[in-house]
């Protein structure tokens, strides 16, 4: 049995094209966490993000022939997710997180709320470049924009996020 952990994305995609489900599972495990985080930040809904995550990988399975042809798996997955998420309306009502303001749960909830207040394309650029560490070229391919436009969108998004959180966000609750 081949060691899928050491194989590249292209090798795994080529194996998946030949209907190797184990190779495909390795690909899903490798990029699944980043993609799910992207869905979660973009939609603000955990259950919806899980459902979209499953559908995205099922769709990528149908497109595995193009992935094996040189397309990068991560770029294809994030491009698919971006096209879907920018069309999803974000929830407008939030439940204020309760508990210790210095706890990870409260801080992450506040960060998520602030992120959902950012416009969709800026939010997508911010998530792709800032949180998910895609390159500017990859993020531009997902957004369908040039690198300079992509960086501008990301910078504007970050400024809006920082303004929403406030200057003392990181120090709140800390002694």
């Amino acid at each position, binding site marked *: 049995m081949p060691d899928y952990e050491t194989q590249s994305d292209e090798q795994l995609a080529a194996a998946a094209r030949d209907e190797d489900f184990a190779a495909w599972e390795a690909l899903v495990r490798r990029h699944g966490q980043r993609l*799910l985080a992207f869905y979660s930040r973009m939609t603000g809904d955990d259950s919806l993000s899980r459902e979209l995550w*499953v559908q995205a990988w099922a769709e990528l*399975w149908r497109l595995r022939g193009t992935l094996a042809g040189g397309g990068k798996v991560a770029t294809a997955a994030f491009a698919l997710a971006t096209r879907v998420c920018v069309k999803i309306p974000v929830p407008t009502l939030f439940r204020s997180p309760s508990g210790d303001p210095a706890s990870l749960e409260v801080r992450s909830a506040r*960060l998520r709320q602030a992120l959902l207040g950012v416009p969709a394309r800026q939010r997508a650029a911010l998530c792709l470049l*800032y949180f998910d560490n895609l390159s500017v070229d990859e993020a531009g391919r997902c957004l369908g924009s040039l690198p300079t436009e992509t960086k501008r969108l*990301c910078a504007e998004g*970050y400024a809006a996020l920082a303004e929403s959180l406030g200057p003392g966000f990181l120090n709140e609750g800390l002694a």
Partner: protein
Amino acid sequence: MSDPRDALLFLELDKGGDAPGPLFEEPRRMLERDPRLRAGWQQYQALKALALEASPEPSEKMLRAVLLQCRRERVGRQLARATGDDELARSILLGKAPGGRSFPGWLKGLLAFAALAMGAMAVWGYWLGLDRKAPGNAPPAPALTTGKEEAVPFEFPLQTPADAALSQPSKADQGNDAQSDADDTHSEPAAARQARRILREHLHEAVARERSDEGDNTAQDDTPTPPPTPTPLVRRALVAQPVGLPASTPRPWPTAYPALMNAGAAQAMGLAPVQAPLPAPALAPVQAPLPAPALAPTQVAAPAPTRVATPWAAPTAAPASPTAGPGPAPAGNLDAIQGSPAGLTLSSGSLTVDGSLDITLGLPERKDIDLRLFDMEGHSVRLLAQGAFGPGIQHFPLDARGDTGGALAPGNYYLRVMTPWFSRVEPIAIQNQ
């Protein structure tokens, strides 16, 4: 107020700050000089770390769902390859009817309308049946002795003489009668064989009489008469007249009572071959009961007090016939039974173990009759009358006792009247009270 330019600087440092060369030298120096930028850069890195720490993890269940969908897609592709139709393969995979092969909307509507119409007709017919059986809507029955009686519809298959003539054996078959009788010995009871023999004799008489009547008519009337068309086996409603039962009294027997009688019993009673063999065509449809007289229950030749519109007077039920029967008309004002071979009337459809039942039999002429009571197994349990009786209304009281004098068990019985040209069976229930 956050500045997008600062954010762009942080982004540049984030994406290429580790790259060698002089490209990011100036940004790094700016961060070291400006404490505001340094604080912003620290916040930039801290927010990123916080977001990564709070990222959700896909569960194994989600992973299995992905793999399941992938396998399903593969099966669907194989199905599409096998069927040559993507839509059909998708429909099979989803367990749905193929969309392209479903009924169009207007056809579905038409089918739904037809189903509704059939249901409404069924309900309507059922309701009419209930309405017909309702006491308030029942047609008034002729009065016999007391009050109003309820007509009891009773269906019995009849066979016209033409049918009987058509169904009688040919000459070649008649030549084998002896052999067939010998064969029948092994399969038929003696009573059934005797009934068949009597029936056959009278059928021959009826055919001969019919032919002679046709000859007379031809001689008297030059107008061509249409050839007699054989009437198929028909069902006609016989109406028994239970007397003394209130209208609301439930009938002790089901409507299709003879159908419940087992074949062995019917054969033992001689009923299987006897499908009301009437001697003349004019008498075939006359199967209505005698209007009940309102007089004392002895042998009466007096007329019934009221004339009753009998069913056999209807043109569809009885074709016009100048002759009422094979014999002379009964004496007195018994025109109500003229045209009827016999009228059998029960005073009630049920008999209690300690009561009695008045059986009225109207005869248009003197004939031999045989009146018996049979149980459900076809055994003769009571002989009420046997022999020749004159024209008029005969009364035969029946109590719940057999020929041996013992009491009959409560249950269902059959009363059979049999003449050489007529036979009828009526159900009787013997009840405890």
